[in-house]
């Protein structure tokens, strides 16, 4: 049975989950005392002990690569990459906007906006089961593009005047795991490289 380790941190509230086969068996974001902890070692040890597994039982590692909080995303990636290196496993890099799109999508496009260094934002459109557009751009440029979309759901952490607030800024670990299971395994030496802002 596969045991998948997932790290999601780019929304600023780190979470670690374990999936056995297709089922989430540990999710730190659901445990009040563990919510937002950046102590990945403690989270992982807690999770493994709760499900009665050992570190070397892990068969797959995946990490959210943002875009989002720069430091928090990078810290999670450093931990995931280090663990992958030590255990001889690749680290599958998962863009946060793919997860957010898959989390929110129903029957209309999902617009995803996340804060970046002002006056920029991270802007994405998720449609037909994939991220069809992603840009790190000026907020006003993103808003001009969004104004041309007749109907959409909103995700992320930026509000748009005249639209419902964002549905969420974090995907569930169930969404994360089912996304992963539909993907091919990563290349043997794959690592998580965060999506970074273009610094001007």
């Amino acid at each position: 049975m596969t045991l998948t380790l997932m790290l999601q941190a780019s929304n600023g509230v780190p979470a670690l989950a374990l999936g056995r086969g297709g089922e989430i068996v540990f999710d730190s974001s659901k445990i009040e005392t563990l919510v937002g902890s950046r102590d990945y070692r403690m989270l992982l040890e807690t999770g493994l002990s709760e499900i009665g597994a050992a570190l070397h039982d892990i068969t797959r590692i995946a990490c959210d690569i943002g875009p989002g909080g720069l430091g928090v995303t990078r810290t999670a990636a450093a931990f995931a990459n280090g663990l992958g290196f030590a255990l001889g496993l690749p680290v599958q890099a998962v863009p946060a906007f793919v997860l957010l799109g898959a989390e929110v999508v129903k029957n209309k496009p999902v617009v995803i906006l996340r804060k970046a260094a002002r006056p920029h934002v991270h802007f994405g459109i998720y449609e037909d089961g994939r991220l069809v557009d992603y840009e790190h751009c000026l907020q006003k440029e993103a808003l001009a593009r969004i104004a041309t979309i007749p109907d959409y759901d909103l995700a992320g952490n930026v509000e748009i005047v005249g639209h419902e607030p964002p549905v969420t800024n974090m995907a569930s670990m169930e969404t994360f795991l089912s996304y992963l299971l539909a993907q091919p395994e990563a290349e043997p030496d794959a690592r998580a490289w965060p999506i970074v802002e273009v610094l001007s």
Partner: protein
Amino acid sequence: MRDLILGIETSCDDTSVALVDRSGHVAAIRTVSQFEIHEAFGGVYPELASRAHLEAILPTIEGVMADASVTPKDLTAIGVTRGPGLIGSLLVGLSTAEALSMGWNVPAYGVNHLRGHIRSVELESGSTVFPAVIMLVSGGHTLVAELKDPWSYRLLGTTRDDSVGESYDKVARMLDLGMPGGPAIDKAAKLGTPVLRLPRPMKNEGYEFSFSGLKSSVARHIEQHPDVSTEDMSASFVAACMDVLAAKADRALTECKPKSLVIVGGVAASPQLREAMAEVAGKHGVELCLPPTKWATDNAAMIAMATWDYIERGLQPGLQPKPNLSLETP
């Protein structure tokens, strides 16, 4: 088991990884410089520094282990800088070390970077004669301390503003000498004469340093005399710095009566500093310990070396970043 420490240093702008045994023998070291990344900014750009650390760290660790044909089973511990330093840069080293420690089942120690500098003297068959007065002068730090033994640290004084290295870099920029500023100023200074009267901040009081006033008076002088000789300006600036550093060293040797004077940090590469300190040490009849330049600048071998002290002392500081860690905290 070969009883090696894997040292990891990412406090500023170099990713450095080393393997060091108990005697201070460096089995392997690799340091990836970020100089080119930051050159255009005229200083270290923290966000870019931590990105570069993330890219470099695992290949550097892998490379060092391959260089020395070492497997995780050969490691006694991992020692990683926990501070002082840039938080984003520290976090990359610390998170990586945490994961390796867990994955390899090897203990990890959060090491004080300043203690690393001080223990750099012990690398490659060097040794500190105790009790000692230590002067740490680099781009990031300026401090003077008394060491009765490897664990009894007494901080005598540190800088209130810029470090010596920082003021070298800033003055080098004012004089268009290029980066890194230290060697450029030293070179220009050798061709000049220290004829300009510059202040010697806090020379006659205690152990605290302050270099920003000196830097400002250089700026004022250049503004008022745009045709000033670069060489004479450099020579005058270096002379002022050396005067202050030598006065503090002299005061510490008088008060502490140690057996040796130890100079560490990147500025220890300066020939003018070496000369000035040799004179002070000679006057007091104490031994002068100057590690080779490669161990004087930031490197992971010194972090690994300091880790042995923690192990012997039974102290295992955690892996939380401490950007403002002081010398007196382990």
